[in-house]
């Protein structure tokens, strides 16, 4: 009986250790350094740093970042970015990504929102997935446009 409990305990500890050190799901990411680049016609260009950190004990292959760009839940663009890198343990990768917001599209689809609020009160959302090994992990970033300095 005792032996069975030890086996179960050992398996539990091994599972926790595996999840902590060897699971791709522990990959950390963040979006930082949002900057205004330019406004040309109805298109506003921003740049944002997509930063990935590999805290696991294994090397992970990072593939494509595929995400939608949303303003107040209205899709205003897409991000498809190939990271294509092998990240060793404890390594950090930063990808400065340029994003374009078609404001004409926002105005067309969110006319009522514009009537009741200003662009500064809106939130920019990047939502999608990042390919890690052969799986994907969800990616999400909410950024209040009031924080943006021109």
């Amino acid at each position: 009986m005792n032996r069975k409990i030890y086996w179960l305990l050992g398996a539990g500890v091994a599972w926790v250790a595996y999840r902590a050190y060897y699971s791709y799901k522990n990959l950390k990411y963040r979006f930082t350094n949002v900057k205004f680049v330019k406004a040309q016609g109805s298109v506003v260009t921003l740049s944002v740093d997509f930063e990935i950190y590999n805290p696991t004990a294994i090397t992970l292959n990072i593939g494509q970042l595929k995400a939608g760009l949303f303003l107040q839940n209205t899709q205003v663009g897409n991000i498809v970015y190939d990271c294509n890198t092998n990240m060793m343990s404890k390594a950090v990768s930063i990808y400065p990504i340029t994003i374009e917001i078609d404001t004409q599209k926002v105005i067309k689809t969110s006319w009522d929102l514009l009537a009741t609020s200003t662009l500064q009160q809106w939130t920019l959302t990047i939502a999608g997935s990042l390919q890690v090994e052969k799986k994907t992990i969800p990616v999400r970033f909410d950024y209040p446009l009031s924080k943006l300095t021109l």
Partner: protein
Amino acid sequence: MQADGRNTLITRSGLNSDLITVIRQVFEQYNHTAIPFVSNLYGCSFRSQCESVFWFVVNNITYKQDEGLNQLIKTPARLFADKVGDCKSMSIFIASCMYQLGARVTFRFVTFDRDYNNYTHVYCVASKDGEEYILDPVERVNKMAKFDYASKYMTKRDVTYTK
């Protein structure tokens, strides 16, 4: 574009992370100044573009480590004018050239000890259409520069730019 020879003080007491930020700023702002250096390389194969830029730096720029706490980060034009620089300035020069040639460039900040946040060296990695080359003109093997080679490091911080 010619260097104007001005020195700009960014901060009096900078951290390692400040250096990375400044290297990025200098690259983003001045990578276009590398166009004259690569104008004769358009149309060459990617490997020969990488080799040309690498050997150009090895043969024309003398490596000199920044003295004490004064860290100089030079634009491509300034490095070419001075003919002297360290790994930071050399990697900005090489990355600017390769970026202007349409490559995806990565600044690789590396540590050689277990102090994960203390990056002591930087070099450029250029890639295009599945080909990737390490461009570290500071590295020496038997006192000779070596194309597509870098020492083993403990950990790295990559900053990647795609045109």
